[in-house]
């Protein structure tokens, strides 16, 4: 049984969540839009889950739109707002590909600008201010915490600048949810993306939370589901699971952080002892479960494979960009050279990790750091 250290890619399903999904997986079929009794039961379940998801971020249920995943939610946020309101878009240089690529697809029809980050992955308020004045975007998209480095954006400080410039703020909170408090008011988010399978819920469901006054055009047409903002039959079982996962993420957040704290402290301590190690975003506020680093002389993919053979499931960065052979755009945006960036390996911890997992990983890394990466 490998040690799973890739929780930012996907988290295991919480058994309690599976339990809650069971009646909708095994029970009578129900399309939540059907008017008969089974359909109405499914509708109630969907609406209860909508409340649970809204509660996680301090929103109202009517502001929650269920989608098929974080990628769709991010696409809907960017394309939906610009289609409804026009104007330009600005996004952070270290955003997830779902934001970055969606934004770039809009370049043909809308002004699109990229907000630079500093060497620690943080958006500089002054640089943001300048860009807001020059580009006057209608929508700004910034992530709450980076999926690769774990670096946390200082949104409570940046959001007022965006608000003052008359732009709406979309926050991709996929990695932050369940790890940090993500009260929508505190973050200053007008739109906010959450994903179920990053917080111990099922895959195939996510949400875009949209403040009522933000205009949003549907991107996927068809049916009157989700108040005509997102057509498609509701994925009832997954939505129910997502709802409970969101509720647990809120109620158990402190406990989960407390459990991770000694693990990440030990990991930091151990990494610091590896000669020549580069820890990305070092010294910056980061998620308590995420560390991305490079070992000198090691290519990230090679190190990943070497760790894989020793029974550790880690990642070289964002899972969806895996195998492309390209260095991480996040690390390049932070000013790292291509070789250093290509050395990156990401460890992301979760509820199922134990102190001995960290010890085992550090032992393996110490061993690998002593041999040249090329022979691995």
């Amino acid at each position: 049984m490998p040690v799973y250290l890739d929780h930012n890619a996907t988290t295991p399903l919480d058994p309690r969540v599976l339990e809650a999904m069971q009646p909708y997986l095994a029970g009578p079929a129900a399309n939540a839009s059907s008017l008969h009794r089974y359909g109405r039961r499914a509708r109630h379940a969907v609406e209860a889950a909508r409340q649970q998801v809204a509660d996680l971020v301090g929103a109202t249920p009517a502001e929650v739109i269920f989608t098929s995943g974080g990628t769709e939610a991010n696409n809907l946020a960017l394309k939906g707002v610009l289609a409804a309101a026009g104007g330009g878009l600005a996004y952070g240089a270290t955003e997830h590909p779902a934001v970055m690529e969606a934004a770039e697809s809009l370049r043909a029809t809308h002004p699109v600008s990229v907000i630079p980050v500093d060497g620690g992955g943080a958006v500089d308020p002054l640089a943001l201010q300048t860009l807001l004045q020059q580009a006057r975007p209608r929508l700004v998209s910034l992530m709450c915490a980076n999926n690769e480095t774990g670096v946390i954006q200082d949104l409570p400080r940046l959001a007022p600048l965006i608000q003052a410039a008359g732009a709406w703020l979309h926050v991709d909170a996929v990695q932050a949810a369940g790890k940090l408090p993500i009260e929508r008011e505190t973050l200053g988010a007008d739109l906010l993306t959450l994903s179920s399978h990053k917080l111990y819920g099922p895959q195939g469901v996510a949400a875009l939370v949209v403040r009522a006054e933000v205009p949003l055009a549907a991107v996927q047409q068809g049916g009157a589901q989700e108040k005509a903002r997102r057509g498609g039959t509701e994925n009832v079982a997954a939505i129910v699971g997502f709802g409970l996962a969101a509720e647990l993420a809120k109620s158990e957040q402190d406990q989960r952080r407390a459990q991770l704290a000694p693990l990440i402290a030990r990991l930091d301590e151990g990494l610091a002892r590896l000669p020549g190690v580069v820890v990305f975003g070092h010294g910056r506020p980061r998620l308590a479960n995420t560390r991305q680093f490079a070992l000198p002389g090691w290519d990230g993919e090679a190190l990943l494979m070497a760790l894989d053979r020793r029974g550790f499931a880690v990642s070289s960065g964002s899972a969806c960009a895996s195998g492309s052979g390209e260095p991480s755009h996040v690390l390049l945006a932070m000013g790292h050279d291509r070789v250093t960036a290509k050395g990156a390996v990401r460890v992301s911890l979760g509820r199922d990790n134990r102190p001995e997992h960290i010890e085992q990983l550090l032992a393996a890394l110490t061993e690998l750091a002593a041999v040249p990466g090329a022979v691995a």
Partner: protein
Amino acid sequence: MIYLDHAATTPLHPQAAQALRAWLDQPGAQANPASDHAAGRELRARIEQARAQVAALIGAQPEELLFTSGATEANNLALKGALEFRGRSGAHLVTSRIEHRCVLDSARWLETQGVRVSYLRPDARGRIDPAAVLAELRPETVLVSLMWVQNELGSCLPIERLAPRLRERGVLLHVDAAQAAGKLAIDLARTPVDLLSLSAHKLGGPPGIGALFVRKRPRARLSPQLHGGGQEQGMRSGTLPAPLILAFGAAAAAAAAEQPALAARLETLRERLWQGLRAGIPDLTRNTPPAGEAAPQLLNVSVPGVEGESLRARLPALALSSGAACSSATREPSYVLRALGHDDALAEASLRYSLGRDTTAAEIDQAIQLTVAAVQALRDIARGVPPAALAATDPRYPSPVWQRFCAPTRVGAVAAAPEQHEIGTRAGRDRLWLGVWRDASGRVQQACFQALGSPYTIALGQWLCESLSAASGPLQPSAAIIRAALEIPEERAHCALMGEEALLALSPPVIPA
């Protein structure tokens, strides 16, 4: 409860449930199939097996399938992706008036982007003539999008005849096969369809997953509509929901194995249903084409002389719909039935029975009996014959309405009464007739009613007769009082206005001297 709404969604096939369970129950970490570690690679391999299973169901190559979140997304991607790739401005799209809402909405959206769209009219049974499709082609026609099996009617498009003709003309053909897959034999190796949409939860897989077939040779080209990590050959970004895909694969494999036998069995059951219904309701209209021209699982009928909402309310033991589930929220009569030339009232009084692999002959016989009884009761209420009472509950209706709707005791022949009143809503869909007997002083002694309308109208007739007969004092013609007495919600307030109108017609003599 008899579930005859399999076209809305059908239960998980046992093999799909098993695949899902096997995945969900496996201890420890699950992986993101895009991850490069061993768990990710293993999962990727299993997803590719599932892709091959889905491909085999339709005679495609695995690499020709893109997984999507469902048929809605697949249809959106097919239409918008193909038109965006070819250039939307001035391009021409051919579709029909009876496509699924998501195709029609995508087409309307494309119109806002400069695409010209032709919406073909079906014949009275919902059939689209291939010749009419060809006649609609123009030099700038990029895409024809039509559904294989119409989801409300079951009518089949002769894709095998149409596809080669479109290929000759160099026009792409997209087929929404959400209702066809697993019910009809589909072989894309022999049928030159370019794009084809599938939905897992219509064929025994889970909701939340579907697929778009995109032909490789000759290559159908699309622009992606969801941008991100570049999964699915860059055509559809987003983490692949592994458990849903594995279950989809298992369901597709089962559907492929069971299709011929299932189709034959469903067709037999469907015809049994039709024969039984028609025997009990001789003037029933069949909207579904005859066997052989229709998918085996669907039967759509319209019932003249009854009102649709009351008809469905009288069938609490049947889970079925009047049309497509996704349009149910709007409660408007089906645009599909209106496209066939039905008026609103007849379109509303329609029932879509959709059968699935666990439907039994006994359930069909029960459904026949329940439907015939419901129609009989409503027709009795309309012609003034006391109907059989219905014992059921329905939380959607206020109790004072529901009780009176289920067991109206004051239904009687209004023509026999010395004094008669007819009251109707402005829209004319609800009619209420009151018959009144008075004593020498003009005081109402007895009242009866007939009604053709919603449960609210029937309950109103019953309440008026009860109140008039029992009136020891004046009955104030006030919609507010009637609303309060029957607990009529805001959106149905017009029914209370009907009651007010009735009392006004009867007053002042209602008030005892």
